[in-house]
């Protein structure tokens, strides 16, 4: 448990230094713009599908390709050593250095040398390693480790750099970036000339040429490879590609996705021991397994080795932006860092960061190697839970309560009564119920300091539905409604509105009463068993209902039904068939309205209210739905004003925001509140009850005059006959 306390402390420390988080936010915003420009005219999805296919083929043929690479490199005079782990790799370099009587090694950037702690090993043998990449040098002088894959010193400010450089160089330097870069240029130039060995990484190991490829901006790798007599290449075996074409294709994606550059200043292709005046050049290639073979063998996680180390999964990650790479990572950071840490350093080292991921899927969306990072992290979280447990509150909730539908629903009812004394009316909004302060015994009291928590509705959707009289003659479709916990117990109005809108468009709604929670909260916390049981209950309920489509108003539920039920029941032939047919007919309500019913052609523009729209992570990146709600809202007359970063996570992440990392959630939610405030709009639409809890709750504290509504509510309001002079979006104020 000590690790947990340490990790909590490191999170708190990071949150106590808002300057870093501010810088990372600015960087994240600028990055998105640069990246968009860089990909203009190219089809990112096609490119990344192609890259994934290349890397998958390399995975399957890795033995043969490695042999081909080695043979070609040796034919050009390279010496190749395959190290089974980083210790062997270090030993090789130390031995070589001793043999050459080398006192100084000039290094350009190599993440695997960080992984190997090579500098320490050299130091222990009395050999000085000079990092020449500017960022790496800064980090080395500070005695730290990189906090970003591409920009190692992104966490440092120029004043700190000036202090470090002044000390190292022995003269006072101004905290001016130009001055500092010039000082480094001069200082490090000596090292290239004095070094006996130059060490570089490799972005590619090209099998059919036996050469390496280096993608860099500063020009230090070229100097390291050129000036010293011995060139050591230190690289992981997963850098293999089949051919020059493969490597060239990757150079089209890597800089664009890393920094928004079309190409870096230098791409350098080196094969063999290149000639020198004395013809005494040596090239040694150290290829490191270090856990990669095990990762290749893991069917669930192996896609992670497609990684080309662009660092983008950090740039877009709300958790990274909030706490930085030293907290949210180890040697490798952010999404890919979670996975590599688990494999290269052990699950124990990865358990805290695995739990710190909020599950927003931004990393998955931005990855040029098409790695479903979020899904792999989810899988690792289940492993972590299996090995280290889940924590008491979650354990009781999921195992004892959620699996028993009747008990769960009764407890929720009881909660709705228990909370009475603590709920209060939200200012100016008679219809909304919020919890201002929770009973002390329920959860940590600081949970309600910065946001209102939604109260459980006095009557759940399932109770209310029984009283609805659906007047639909000759329905176009009969659809089942998978309500999900959020819409059932907290925001039943979302479901009621859906029924109204569907009835208006000639569709009848069926509600199987035996449906239960989708199980994602349990699954996200790592409780697979409960997930399987809940999947069965739900598949059965909808199988018996026999409807044309199944709709959700919560995109997390949609993902659960579409993706996870099928996976959870895959081992059972009968149930898996039923799960697949349920999956095929399940979709988000907005997607059904727009794509099946073509509702934006049918609905009338009756509203004129100004609104803004928040894209839920799971709706946009989990289900690829984001155009649909906009089309529907515009069709009904709403004036949509886009907020900045509309698809950035709101910080909810289910139990994450309550139990795992409420402080990180708080920061992320604060960003969303700011974006909304800037629009000046008084209504925020969204399609996820989880987001409604988070955005609604945080907005409630920040500006109670802003209303957070489910798209279904706004659509329902727009189709209802209204008295003159009132627009539906504003009628509650």
């Amino acid at each position: 448990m000590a690790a947990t306390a340490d990790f909590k402390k490191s999170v708190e420390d990071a949150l106590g230094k808002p300057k870093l988080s501010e810088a990372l936010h600015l960087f994240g915003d600028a990055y998105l713009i640069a990246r968009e420009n860089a990909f203009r005219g190219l089809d990112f999805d096609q490119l990344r599908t192609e890259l994934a296919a290349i890397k998958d083929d390399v995975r399957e043929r890795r033995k043969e390709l490695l042999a081909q690479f080695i043979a070609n490199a040796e034919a050009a005079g390279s010496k190749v050593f395959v190290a089974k782990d980083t210790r062997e790799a270090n030993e090789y370099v130390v031995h070589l250095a001793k043999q050459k009587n080398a006192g100084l090694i000039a290094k350009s950037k190599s993440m695997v040398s960080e992984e190997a702690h090579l500098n320490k090993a050299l130091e222990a043998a009395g050999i000085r390693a000079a990092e020449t990449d500017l960022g790496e040098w800064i980090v080395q002088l500070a005695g730290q480790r990189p906090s970003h894959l591409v920009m190692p010193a992104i966490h440092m400010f120029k004043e700190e750099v000036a202090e470090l450089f002044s000390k190292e160089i022995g003269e006072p330097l101004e905290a001016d970036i130009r001055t500092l870069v010039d000082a480094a240029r001069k200082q490090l130039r000596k090292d290239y000339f004095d070094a006996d060995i130059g060490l570089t990484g490799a972005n590619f190991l090209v099998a059919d040429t036996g050469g390496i490829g280096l993608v860099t901006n500063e020009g230090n790798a070229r100097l390291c490879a050129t000036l010293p007599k011995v060139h050591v290449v230190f690289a992981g075996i997963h850098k293999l590609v089949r051919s020059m074409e493969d490597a060239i294709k990757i150079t089209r994606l890597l800089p664009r996705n890393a920094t928004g550059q079309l190409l870096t200043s230098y791409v350098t292709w080196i094969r063999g021991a290149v000639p020198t005046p004395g013809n005494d050049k040596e090239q040694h290639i150290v290829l490191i397994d270090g856990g990669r073979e095990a990762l290749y063998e893991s069917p669930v996680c192996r896609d992670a080795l497609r990684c080309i180390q662009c660092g983008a999964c950090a740039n877009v990650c709300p958790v990274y932006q909030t706490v930085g790479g030293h907290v949210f990572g180890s040697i490798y950071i952010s999404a890919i860092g979670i996975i590599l840490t688990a494999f290269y350093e052990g699950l124990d080292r990865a358990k805290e960061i695995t739990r710190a991921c909020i599950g927003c899927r931004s990393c998955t969306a931005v990855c040029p190697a098409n790695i479903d990072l979020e899904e792999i992290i989810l899988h690792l979280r289940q492993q972590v839970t299996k090995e280290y447990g889940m924590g008491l509150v979650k354990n009781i909730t999921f195992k004892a309560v959620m699996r028993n539908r009747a008990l769960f629903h009764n407890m929720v009812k009881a909660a709705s009564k228990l909370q009475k004394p603590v709920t209060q009316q939200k200012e100016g909004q008679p219809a909304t119920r919020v919890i201002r302060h929770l009973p002390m015994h329920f959860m940590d009291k600081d949970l309600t300091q910065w946001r209102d928590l939604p109260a459980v509705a006095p009557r759940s959707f399932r109770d209310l539905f029984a009283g609805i009289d659906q007047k639909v003659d000759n329905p176009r479709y009969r659809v089942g409604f998978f309500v999900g916990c959020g819409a059932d117990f907290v925001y039943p109005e979302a479901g009621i509105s859906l029924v109204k809108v569907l009835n208006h468009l000639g569709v009848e709604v069926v509600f199987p009463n035996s449906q239960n929670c989708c199980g994602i909260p349990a699954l996200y916390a790592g409780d697979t068993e409960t997930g399987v049981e809940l999947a069965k209950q739900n598949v059965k309920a909808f199988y018996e209902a026999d409807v044309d489509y199944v709709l959700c108003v919560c995109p997390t539920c949609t993902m659960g039904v579409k993706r996870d039920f099928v996976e959870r029941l895959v081992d059972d032939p009968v149930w898996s068939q039923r799960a697949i047919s349920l999956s095929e007919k399940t979709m988000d309500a907005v997607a059904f309205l727009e794509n099946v019913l073509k509702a934006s052609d049918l609905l009338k523009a009756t509203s004129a209210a100004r609104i803004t729209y928040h894209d839920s992570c799971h709706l946009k990146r989990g289900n690829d739905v984001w155009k649909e709600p906009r089309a529907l809202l515009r069709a009904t007359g709403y004036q949509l004003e886009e907020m900045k970063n509309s698809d950035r996570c709101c910080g909810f992440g289910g139990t994450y925001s309550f139990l795992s990392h409420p402080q990180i959630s708080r920061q992320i939610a604060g960003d969303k509140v700011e974006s909304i405030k800037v629009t000046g709009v008084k209504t925020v639409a969204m399609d996820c009850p989880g987001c409604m809890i988070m955005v609604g709750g945080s907005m409630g504290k920040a500006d109670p005059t802003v209303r957070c509504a489910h798209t279904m509510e706004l659509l329902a309001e727009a189709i209802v006959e209204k008295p003159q002079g009132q627009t539906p979006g504003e009628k509650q104020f």
Partner: protein
Amino acid sequence: MAEKHLVHSFTEAAGRVGAAVVPCTTLQDAVAYVARTAVGHTLIPQTALAAEFQLRSLLGGAGVDVCSVSFREAGQLPGAGVTFCNFAMADTGTVVLDSTSEDVRLATTIPEVHFVILDPAKILTDNLAAAAPMNTLYAGSEPRFVAYITGPSRTADIERVLTIGCHGPRELHILLVPDVSDDLMEI
């Protein structure tokens, strides 16, 4: 003949990353430009094209301080390097140099300023089109060092502020000179 639109997009792309692209009518123009611009010791590797066009004596004659010792003895931060190149890529503004000869490597990495002479006939559409000549360069099993150079050296490692001139040349001047060579294997 170089297609106009390739020259145009090359010039734009190279300009965007901070290279100076200078159209010249003849090699003499280019020589005059280097003589006007270069400061200090200048490294001119004796490649096939440099020998054919007697680049060293042309530049020396125009008053450039041509390095006559081994380039490793030319100091740690010599003034300039002047080279030809194998080919270029229009979409990214990149020049490609077979740098297997150590002198080419030194002349393009250590000086403050790099001048590169490019015949517009050598401009390819994009990096996919470069795959074929790259494969030719890497045929056989001889050691080989090929450099793609796109603009001057840069870094953003301090506070993510783009700063030109970290370890490589601070300036890259690309001199477009027609009728030099359209052979992509030649530098």
